[in-house]
């Protein structure tokens, strides 16, 4: 979306700077004047919420690193030292751990928003792929961070998850030892995880910059999926979306603060308050909630597939569940972008959402009885949705009529529509 800059240097100093490093011009273009579709709903605020959460995690993380000791015999006590002795340490530490949960809650909403409104479709494929890369980096960072307090869950999560690599034929074990820096998870593992946990957020920040760059080239998608036709369809990012996003961030902080101050441990597991012990496995190990759907997929494969044993099979499906996201722009063959105009798609979509929640539940349930069968069905639907429903539906579905422009859609809906879905959510004044 080419747009010429409206920036005129206000004085000689600004002009001097502008001739050398046009950073003010750039900021004005991309952070203030950036034309944004005027019909974005609140689902679109999660991008800003995520940027905010990345900042929160980096700032609190740097603070925690000032007091934390990455050593197997000291790590557990040093985290407790932060909670007990450091000024405000209990809250700062709770913001960081609860923040990880809130970060993932937001990123899942952001991703599901993209899946519903077809935000990954041309010309935004790279934008989507960068988003998936950010998600993979977040998963890695969160996993390593969870190991640092060196509780029982930390240790066994590290053991179980690094063992995934061991499933790879032939080279699996050498890679496993390389990853751990030993034959089991130990001090070397803890140290490298601390180092990488500190590094990766800055890598995420860099990919986020690319993500936003890739967003600003085609511009935002919007709930109708109809591209911006004229300047009538847009408003400048500032103040319209800066203020709306800020409002959303403040609202998002309310449940965040609720957990931080009143139930800082409710999203974690009591066993992580027991110091790591390589001789005793907790009776029921579960990952953090945000990994549960993928953990359920990993566990669901308990049978050999031809020459692939069940362990490797689980790992393939586990990795595949994330890898498949990279191909979504090409798997979805529908010409219509927004799910709001796809009557049959909606059913499959909401079933997919429910299925994902079910997978999360199954990931936490013991692998026994009915849960085993349900896990297989839910895993199957996860892949069917991407590999069969999305490619075929585009060919058979008759979409509803699209508005010719964002402005037309806005005017048409100025009169309230009964029973509209949240996709078209809007207030009329």
């Amino acid at each position, binding site marked *: 979306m080419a747009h010429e800059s409206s920036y005129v240097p206000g004085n000689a100093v600004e002009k001097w700077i502008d001739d050398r490093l046009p950073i003010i011009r750039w900021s004005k273009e991309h952070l203030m004047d950036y034309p944004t579709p*005027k019909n974005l709903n609140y689902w679109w605020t999660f991008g800003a919420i995520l940027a905010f959460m990345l900042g929160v995690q980096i*700032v609190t993380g740097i*603070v925690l690193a*000032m*007091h934390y000791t990455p050593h197997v015999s000291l790590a557990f006590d040093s985290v407790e*030292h932060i909670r*007990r*002795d*450091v*000024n*405000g*340490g209990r*809250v*700062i530490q709770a913001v960081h751990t609860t923040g990880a949960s809130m970060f993932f809650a937001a990123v899942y909403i952001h991703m599901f928003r993209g899946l519903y409104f077809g935000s990954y479709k041309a010309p935004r494929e790279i934008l989507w792929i960068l988003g998936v890369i950010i998600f993979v980096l977040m998963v890695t960072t969160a996993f390593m961070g969870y190991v640092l307090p060196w509780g029982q869950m930390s240790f066994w999560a590290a053991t179980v998850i690094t063992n995934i690599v061991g499933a790879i034929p032939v080279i699996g074990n050498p890679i496993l030892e390389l990853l751990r820096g030993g034959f089991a998870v130990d001090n070397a593992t803890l140290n490298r995880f601390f180092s990488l946990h500190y590094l990766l957020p800055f890598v995420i920040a860099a990919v986020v910059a690319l993500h936003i760059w890739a967003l600003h080239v085609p511009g935002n998608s919007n709930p109708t999926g109809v591209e911006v036709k004229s*300047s*009538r369809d*847009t*408003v*400048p990012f*500032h*103040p*319209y979306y800066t203020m709306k996003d*800020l409002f959303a961030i403040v609202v998002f902080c309310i449940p965040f603060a609720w957990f931080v101050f009143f139930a800082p441990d409710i999203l974690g597991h009591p066993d992580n308050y027991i110091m790591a012990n390589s001789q005793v496995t907790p009776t029921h190990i579960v990952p953090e909630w945000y990994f549960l759907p993928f953990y359920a997929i990993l566990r669901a494969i308990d049978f050999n597939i031809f020459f692939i044993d069940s362990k490797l099979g689980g790992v393939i499906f586990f990795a595949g569940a994330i890898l498949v996201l990279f191909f979504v722009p090409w798997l979805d063959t529908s010409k219509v972008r927004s799910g709001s105009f796809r009557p049959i798609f909606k059913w499959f979509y909401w079933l997919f959402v429910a299925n994902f929640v079910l997978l999360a539940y199954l990931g936490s349930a013991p692998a026994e009885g009915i849960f085993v069968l349900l896990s297989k069905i839910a895993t199957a639907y996860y892949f069917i949705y991407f590999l069969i429903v999305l490619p075929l539906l585009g060919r058979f579905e008759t979409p509803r009529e699209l508005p010719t422009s964002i402005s037309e859609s806005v*005017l048409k809906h*100025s009169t309230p529509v009964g029973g509209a879905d949240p996709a078209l959510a809007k207030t009329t*004044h």
Partner: protein
Amino acid sequence: MATQSNLAHQDAPQPGRRDFLYIAAGAVGAVGVAGVTWPLINQLNPDASVLALASIEFDLSGIEEGQSVTIKWRGLPVFVRHRTAAEIAEAQAVPLSDLKDPETDEQRTKPGHEQWLIMIANCTHLGCVPVGESGDFDGWFCPCHGSHYDSAGRIRKGPAPKNLVLPPYEFVSDTLVKIG
């Protein structure tokens, strides 16, 4: 609303009756930023476990006359010396005019406890720990750059500008001293 309105590209709101709302929101936002910033700075301050050792009690009863011990207080070495009568007399006899940093022996000890000399054991020149019972003045000698202190820990010769620093301390009883 008018059908064709596109006020979007106009500049942000005109000043006037809206101002109060924007100023109020901005002010509350600023309070929020300050409220978040302070704990992030305050966490840099000494933590509770460090502050708990800011003040220590030390039992003097085990130190014989003429003996000296070095204890740790706030991470610093502290000399506690049980001075002999001769050392006290020598220190009290020095005229103030001979001193680079004039202080009487009374100023460097507590009344009734003149035998106890309690000083932070870092040379006031560049922070080395001086060696006891040596130097030209029967006190301490700093081997790093050759500063000589007398039996009251006062600088007598060498590059150090000040007498050895006294920590804040008081006697809880004749044999118990509270430093810090």
